[in-house]
């Protein structure tokens, strides 16, 4: 009802909603503010729209499990290594507590979900990073799960897909976390030697050690519109160079122009694009 109203009398409705929102502190459970167009949007509308802002098409964070639902045919997903847990190898202060906190909050054991399933009938291995779990940071578990998933693709000769979103390496695992960059990259080298296509999908935000390893190594690299993708985060760069960054810096469109992204694909078209790419690599329904 409210949605329809908004759509029909857009300007008017918007204004009154904003007023409502500010004056009466309307329940934040139902409303949110789009970080791109800054308009108030009805959460349910956003959720029903694959977390794309209905007003400006901005791609908000899509929860990892829903990403799998979006891309993988219903009922075909088999998860790998669900019970791999991070250990506090360095005895880093507070790390166990933090892990437990995130486990409770997300109901996941770490920052990536891996598994296999079908995309319009075509087999694929898929890894979805989860920024809800410690910013999608990569520690030993993320590195190991992605490596094992790539191995699965090699052994079963099926295309490999990673949907990245990450704050980078997980500092609580120190050098071990850094080494996951090499570990995953070298498994991708094996994948490449076996001529198995690897499609890397970059979503907001993809930064640090993930950008500097598997995210940038796709045979084909796809990004969601406006996703922030970079090695250094924009705040770190601004502190280093003591300047504000230009508009659009490190966004998907910028990376496309700079030659690092093949295609920018709307979330709604993503499954079909994956299907077309896999098909063009000669794979057929099994």
């Amino acid at each position: 009802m409210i949605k329809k109203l908004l759509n029909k009398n857009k300007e008017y409705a918007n204004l009154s909603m904003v007023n409502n929102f500010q004056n009466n502190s309307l329940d934040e459970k139902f409303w949110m503010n789009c970080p791109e167009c800054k308009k108030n949007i009805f959460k349910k509308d956003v959720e029903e729209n694959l977390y794309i802002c209905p007003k400006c098409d901005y791609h908000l964070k899509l929860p990892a499990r829903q990403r799998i639902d979006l891309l993988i045919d219903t009922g075909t997903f088999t998860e790998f290594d669900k019970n791999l847990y991070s250990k506090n190898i360095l005895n880093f202060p507070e790390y166990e507590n933090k892990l437990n906190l995130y486990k409770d909050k997300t109901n996941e054991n770490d920052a990536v979900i891996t598994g296999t399933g079908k995309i319009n009938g075509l087999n694929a291995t898929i890894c979805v990073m989860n920024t809800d779990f410690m910013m999608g940071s990569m520690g030993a578990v993320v590195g190991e799960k992605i490596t094992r998933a790539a191995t699965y693709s090699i052994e079963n000769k099926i295309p490999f897909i990673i949907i990245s979103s990450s704050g980078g390496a997980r500092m609580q695992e120190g050098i071990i976390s850094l080494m996951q960059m090499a570990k995953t990259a070298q498994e991708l080298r094996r994948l490449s030697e076996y001529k198995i296509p690897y499609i890397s999908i970059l979503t907001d935000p993809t930064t640090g050690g993930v950008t500097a390893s598997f995210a940038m190594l796709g045979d084909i690299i796809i990004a969601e519109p406006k996703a922030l993708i970079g090695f250094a985060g924009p705040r770190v760069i601004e502190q280093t160079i003591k300047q504000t960054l230009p508009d659009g810096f490190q966004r998907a469109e910028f990376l496309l122009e700079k030659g690092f992204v093949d295609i920018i694909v709307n979330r709604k078209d993503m499954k079909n694009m994956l299907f077309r790419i896999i098909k063009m690599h000669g794979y057929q329904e099994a």
Partner: protein
Amino acid sequence: MMQIDKPILELESKIQELKKLSQDNNIDLSTEIDILTRKLENMKTQIYENLTPWQKVNLTRSNDRPTSKDYILNICSDFIELHGDRCFRDDLSIIGGIGLIDDICVTIIGHQKGKTVKENIARNFGMPHPEGYRKALRLMKQADKFNRPIITFIDTPGAYCGIGAEERGQGEAIARNLLEMSSLGVPIISIVIGEGGSGGALALGVCNKLAMLEHSIYSVISPEGLSSILWKDVSKASQAASIMKLTSNDLYELEVVDKIIKEPLGGAQKDVKSTSESIKKYIIEQIRSYQNLTREEIIDDRYKKFRKIGY
């Protein structure tokens, strides 16, 4: 460095004073001098064998710490520096070329810091742009073609953070090196000689054998970076350094590093020649140990090294 050296320097000058006093006034102070000299030696050992992680961080960053070039010139009987990525620019923060170690032809690549402000500006303080990594990769592929072992020296605060670096794909350049280095059929021996800073260090470090100079460090983030994330306070870097396991001993225990190369008392800068000798000895040993392996075995050896880290 100042702080670390301070008590040593004070004691050294005291001994000098006594010697002068003894000479000028013709009095015998040899017992006192002997005692103090022994005390000095003990103090040196005491200090340098018990450096805190933060002291090591500072030691690796000090201007008199030997750089890649210092070691290359000491280790090689001949060295020809090669330049450029064949694409955008020659990045001086990475040095690379071909050289002879005894009679072995090798390719050597290293991060290159400067020793003066001017040099450091030219070398960008040892922080590469993407073209630096691409130059390194070009030289490594060339080494692979001609079947030359590859030596890399790691010494960088990290890959450079800046507009140009992002525009030209810092992430892609590092990632590409990780993947391509894992496919080279020649042995890669990496030695952390100073600061091993994050992905910018690892981009030269996908190796068969990893050694660290005794006082060098290697970490996923700088102590300052960690401190500012954990406590929103850069000044607690020394505290951060103490929890992040970045010394050669820490990495040896974590089985990331294969070998710790001892430094002379007081650090590598006190005796570049002897440090170079130790490095050279290690390199030759390692190259010999790979001599009878096939390309596939060498690749597989490197693969296994990283495959097992973490899980």
